[in-house]
């Protein structure tokens, strides 16, 4: 234990090592931050929508609860149990309606 502080291997080797590890982690933060910046980037925002001229509601207006209130008002009891020929067979009114709908798109 006769060596001076700066001559001891613990300090000569250990201190630069610790500085490298701890300081390096601060330096690496600059590179690792990219992952969090990318993940937090939001592309569809009210500002972007305003640039195009589209009106967008705020996040607070559109919640699970508010949409559920709208869904509650859907009438789920008035449906008919429709059985019938396959789409490509004769007499399938739904299929004829589908063909009409597709033709009206043209």
């Amino acid at each position, binding site marked *: 234990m006769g060596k001076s502080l700066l001559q001891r291997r613990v300090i000569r080797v250990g201190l630069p090592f610790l500085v490298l590890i701890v300081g390096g982690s601060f330096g690496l933060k600059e590179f690792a931050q990219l992952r969090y910046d990318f993940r937090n980037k939001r592309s569809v925002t009210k500002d972007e929508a305003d640039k195009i001229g589209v009106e967008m509601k705020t996040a607070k207006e559109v919640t699970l609860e508010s949409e559920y209130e709208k869904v509650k008002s*859907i009438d789920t009891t008035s449906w008919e149990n*429709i059985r019938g020929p396959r789409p490509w067979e004769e007499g399938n009114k739904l299929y004829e309606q589908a063909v009409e709908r597709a033709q009206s798109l043209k």
Partner: protein
Amino acid sequence: MASWSSLGFQDAASPLMEQLIFFYDYAMLVIILIVTLVGYMMASLFFNKLTNRFLMEGQTIEMIWTILPALILIFIALPSLRLLYLLDEVGSPEITIKVIGHQWYWSYEYSDFLQVSFDSYMLPPNELPDNGFRLLDVDNRTVLPVNAQVRVLISAADVIHSWTVPALGVKADAVPGRLNQVSFAVNRPGLFFGQCSEICGANHSFMPIVIESTSTDAFLNWISSSSD
């Protein structure tokens, strides 16, 4: 996309589906290792001429073939639980769409925008263009922006349906009177197809789902042209 005779999963189009595929590959590797080991042991019995008619017990080997399977199960369970909780995470969504299942079509409503809602019917095969996908193409596709966290709220108006897109790793039942929520982000542009996954009547096989993912600008332009 899915085509005839495809055996494996479709290519993932969302981070969650990527994780599901990774876990599947890992679990399949473990299973193949077990089957190989047991198969080898059984095959080697055919060529074994050693017999011990007075074998009573083997404490060491019994310990091994109890502890080893338990360890293998832990190695499978840990990633599985990680994925299970990952699937339930709700990141803050950028856009919300509401999907209502009807007999036999889907109706979509973009809740964040004013008056963007439409019905999506399957294109009948003889009205399909020559490069169209039979029983999969629809008249109005659901357009979504790439890399945006999307929240989909799913319900039904008559009977139970199920809304699914395999490439995105999402499936949720559309139950009348109930609102289910799924959350995902599409990480590449393209067309992703799905089909109704709960028997709902005569045309249950003929109400597909098509997601078209594009850039944010193209999406917003589509919104402005749809709300007119």
